[in-house]
């Protein structure tokens, strides 16, 4: 089977039972993506598939052949860390760091959803063409990522400063 992860092609023959998370960690040795609950409750395993965030623990790897998979290892550019990763450092968006790869990937996928005008449960006017970046919106849209250290305020600030710009603050 063919998998494309962070722009690199891999030929792997996983068991049909293998989750995308286990494929990344155990077969491709990309251990940046974390296993928290392994049942879709915590978001530590969040990766991007064709730019869309999903829980890799609930995804069977066989379903994601020939798709463009991005993990935290694929975010870094030649210039260094992704701007959101820098913002997590600057704003104390983590303590132990275990949930961070999932938080970062999730936030990048979430930002695209918001920019595309996809509403959230908090959106007042469903017919609005664009969505506002507010801290409450970020919290609602990031509710699938738990942080047991409770670094939420820093996480929200890191996301806000990276994607919302000064105008939204």
């Amino acid at each position, binding site marked *: 089977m063919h998998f494309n992860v962070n722009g690199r092609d891999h030929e792997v023959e996983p*068991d*049909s*039972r293998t*989750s995308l998370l286990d494929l990344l960690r155990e077969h491709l040795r990309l251990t940046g993506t974390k296993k928290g609950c*392994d*049942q*879709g409750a915590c*978001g530590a395993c*969040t990766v991007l598939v064709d730019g*869309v*965030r*999903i*829980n890799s623990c*609930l*995804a*069977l790897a*066989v*379903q994601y052949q020939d798709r463009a998979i991005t993990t935290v290892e694929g975010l870094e550019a030649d210039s260094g860390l992704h701007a959101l990763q820098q913002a997590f450092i600057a704003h104390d968006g983590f303590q132990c760091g275990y949930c961070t790869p999932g938080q970062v990937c*999730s936030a990048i*996928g*979430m930002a695209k*959803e918001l920019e*595309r*005008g*996809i*509403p*959230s*449960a908090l*959106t007042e006017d*469903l*017919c609005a063409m664009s969505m506002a970046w507010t801290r409450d919106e970020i*919290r*609602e*849209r*990031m*509710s*699938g*990522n738990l942080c047991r250290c409770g670094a939420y305020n820093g996480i929200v600030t890191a996301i806000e400063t990276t994607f919302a710009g000064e105008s939204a603050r």
Partner: protein
Amino acid sequence: MMPFNYARARDPADAVRLAAGRTEARFLGGGTNLVDLMRESVEVPKTLIDVTELSQEITARDDGSLLIGAGVKNTTIAADRRVRERFPLLARAILSGASGQIRNMATVGGNIMQRTRCYYFYDESARCNKRTPGAGCDAIDGFNRIHAILGASPACVATHPSDMCVALAALDASVHTVSATGHRTLKLADLHRLPGDTPHIETELAPGELITAVGIPPCSFATRSVYRKVRDRASYAFALVSVAAALDLTDNGTVRDVRIALGGVAHKPWRAEKAEAALRGGQATEASFQLAADAELKEARGLRHNAFKIELARRTLVACLAELSRRDEK
């Protein structure tokens, strides 16, 4: 997880063919519930037939109806401008469910066919008539705060967890299916069964029958609609009680038509026909809303930990109707 064969269906007919004669085959959508159940050995399919790439269209007709393919992702429905404009309660119901990641994975067909989140159903060491027919139910005398208050039986008090289906029930949606014997259409409200003596049989679908689409008929007053979900945390939690409602008022405040469905209260999305009948033709007042809620919840029965849901459902329904009656939009 037990080993299984994986096959990707090319089209609905291919999916039906692959499932034919295999009672232990399951159709695979986003996998957000099925994969979890397989890991817990609650589901042990021998074959998974991947149908995520089928039925991807949302088709709008001039009469105001919509046909949503079973493979459409939950996020895609909630983002669809026609859904947001014509059936806002459906977009709101979907957005109030699960997390962003899960909504990106979950399909319409999978959302409809998801299983209860009763803890005892997932716990292999507990008795569960749904998992093992005739085994007994540990929820009835156990911790049953999240369980059913309407339509339950001595065999099962589980609830259907979907938000989307509650809105679809209120909208009179239909479910289109295909099987070896052909195509058919049934009402979503008739698809899920009450538990009775056979809680392991959850829907009217035959083995190997595949959902291909959901049809939503025109409903001009769905623009005046609401989905309110009451839960233990502000986001990413199943409903204790939810209400989907749409209200059509005349200029003098009479209820011309109304649609109501309740979630979190029964083994199926609960269309509140008694409340609707009580309201139609009458004045839209707080008192009439109370009477309608009473009519619907007259048969409600609480268990040791969930009796609070009866009053919660009553108040949530009244609050939703009051909110809708105050809106000045058409």
